[in-house]
């Protein structure tokens, strides 16, 4: 029986799967197509992670370090899966670096990509410099350490968050009808961060409904309003325009509580991006023959299993954002679960 496990993807889920497998003493091959481990939060310099308000270095850093130091884990950067033949527990995989391996189980943790805001042309992204994405706002915090309007470098007087850009949207086709899960909470956090550092800046969140589910309700919905004075306005922004007379943007929407159209001036507009399956996820799904949601193309768990990390193919486990929007701490937990499942699948025993 093959004693190796292949983990595809070096983000939070892949790292935690590889760490669990490695610590159990199982030979693990971790492949990552980028030059660096850590996934989106590390590669794209997120500033603060929900829900614990820690930095990506604090959360994912220890996983990277541990995986790199485990003798049982073989990290291969800039490497992708080329093909896979055979059935569990004897998969023969070929990698893009030319290597071939025989593995007993596979953990797929290929993650997501951000929605491309240019697809919503009416929101003016890439047309007006002061329309930015929430990812760019994170990078503004983490790389520049300050809030500013890209058009003139000044502090904005008003910031608007536009919820559900690339989420819950049939206009984009069937691919983006799901909820991104993190957007409401992250906006609450980003709004709070802005108000804490710049109390003179007014922050508006334009929402259809606020989905800070479970224990996120208080820290990411109540606290932004009650403690930091973030304002919530019900209505989806339908169009963003620019007024050359005052150099400010206008967010066009219907205030659905007042039931009147509105075009309100804003200095900085932040688009809250939805999540889509990454190119890697779609590619790996084809190679491995994994079931995908016909609409979103995210991976779907086995219909026979109640566990969401068990794929439709025996010996292949799926973890993290390749299955749909998910937060970092759940990704880490799913990676750990998938790693442990893969270990039991290849019959590994913990010796006393």
């Amino acid at each position, binding site marked *: 029986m093959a004693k190796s496990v292949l983990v595809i993807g070096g983000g939070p889920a892949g790292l935690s799967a590889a760490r669990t497998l490695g610590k159990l003493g199982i030979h693990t091959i971790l492949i990552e197509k980028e030059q660096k481990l850590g996934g989106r939060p590390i590669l794209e310099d997120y500033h603060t992670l929900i829900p614990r308000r820690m930095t990506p270095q604090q959360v994912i850093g220890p996983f990277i370090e541990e995986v790199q130091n485990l003798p049982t884990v073989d990290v291969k950067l800039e490497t992708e899966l080329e093909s896979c033949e055979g059935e569990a527990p004897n998969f023969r995989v070929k990698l893009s670096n030319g290597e071939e391996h025989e593995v007993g189980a596979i953990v797929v943790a290929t993650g997501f990509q951000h929605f491309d805001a240019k697809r919503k042309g009416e929101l003016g992204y890439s047309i007006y410099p002061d329309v930015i994405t929430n990812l760019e706002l994170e990078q503004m915090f983490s790389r520049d350490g300050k809030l500013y309007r890209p058009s003139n470098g000044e502090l904005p007087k008003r910031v608007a968050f536009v919820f559900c850009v690339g989420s819950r949207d049939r206009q984009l086709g069937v691919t983006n009808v799901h909820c991104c899960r993190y957007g409401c909470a992250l906006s609450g956090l980003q709004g709070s961060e802005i108000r804490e550092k710049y109390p003179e800046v*007014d922050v508006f969140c334009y929402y259809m409904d606020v989905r800070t589910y479970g224990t996120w309700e208080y820290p990411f*919905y*109540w606290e932004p*309003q*009650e403690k930091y*004075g973030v*304002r*919530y*306005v*019900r209505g989806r922004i339908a169009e963003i325009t620019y007024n050359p007379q005052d150099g400010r943007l206008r967010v066009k929407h219907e*205030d659905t*509580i*007042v039931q*009147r*159209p*509105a*075009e*309100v*001036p804003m200095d900085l507009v932040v688009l809250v991006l939805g999540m889509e399956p990454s190119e890697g996820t779609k590619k790996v799904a084809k190679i491995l023959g994994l079931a995908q949601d016909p609409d979103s193309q995210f991976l779907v768990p086995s219909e026979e299993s109640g566990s969401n990390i068990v794929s439709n193919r025996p010996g292949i486990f799926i973890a993290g954002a390749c299955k749909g929007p998910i937060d970092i701490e759940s990704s880490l937990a799913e990676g750990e679960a998938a790693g442990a499942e893969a270990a039991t699948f290849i019959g590994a025993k913990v010796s006393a």
Partner: protein
Amino acid sequence: MAIHERSLVEPERILRKERLVIDGVDVSGDWNLIILPRTINDYDLSFYEEVVAQPEGKTIVNCYQCSYCTASCPVHNYWDERYNPRHFIYLARLGLIDELQKRADVMWRCVSCHKCTHRCPKGVLVEEVLKAILRVMAKRGLIEEYPSKKFDKFFMDVVYEYGRIEDGELLFGWIEKQGYKVVKDPVLKKPIPFMGGVPEWLKQLAVKPIKNLNIDFLLLNAKHMLFHPRTKNWNRFKQVLRKVMEEEGVFTH
């Protein structure tokens, strides 16, 4: 130009000019009619800041628009749908002044049952918050002062004059302020009860003790109405009271 569906447009949004020049082009005649858009162009956030700066207004930040308050509100349920505490809070937070003003005629109608405050799942002291909103509106001249305050003031005037509540004068003086013609005696210039215009409800009120032969009550009232008794030594006390009120800046006579 005619508007065929005039009922869809509020009259204040229809602008008709005899002579109209736009960007140098004379459009008088057929094109002299303009419908102003319904669009909200901006928020007046200073309104909210003034509300939240008051002790009663603090909890406005807690509201998440669930409308538990409005669903519980007897004024909303039984009187006028435009009385909507939840909506007032939303409008005040964004400073949508024109929308608040549209409801100015109903906004004083709180009956202080406090169901809203008692039930609010977010701890908004709704009744207090609404008072804070009204105070800011009154301060800005967006709403008339609380109507019952007029009575409060008249009531205080009577107490100040006699050192006690003088029923006859309070009642008929107030009726006079409501626009009824009241007959006054030539000496004291005080209203003579029932000698002029009397509202129907008051007639009913007077008929009851007569029918019931409540002699003591009738005699007492008749005595007060004729002689306007004062509290003993009131004039001296009145001077002290006047001094205190002047010092505290509440004297309005």
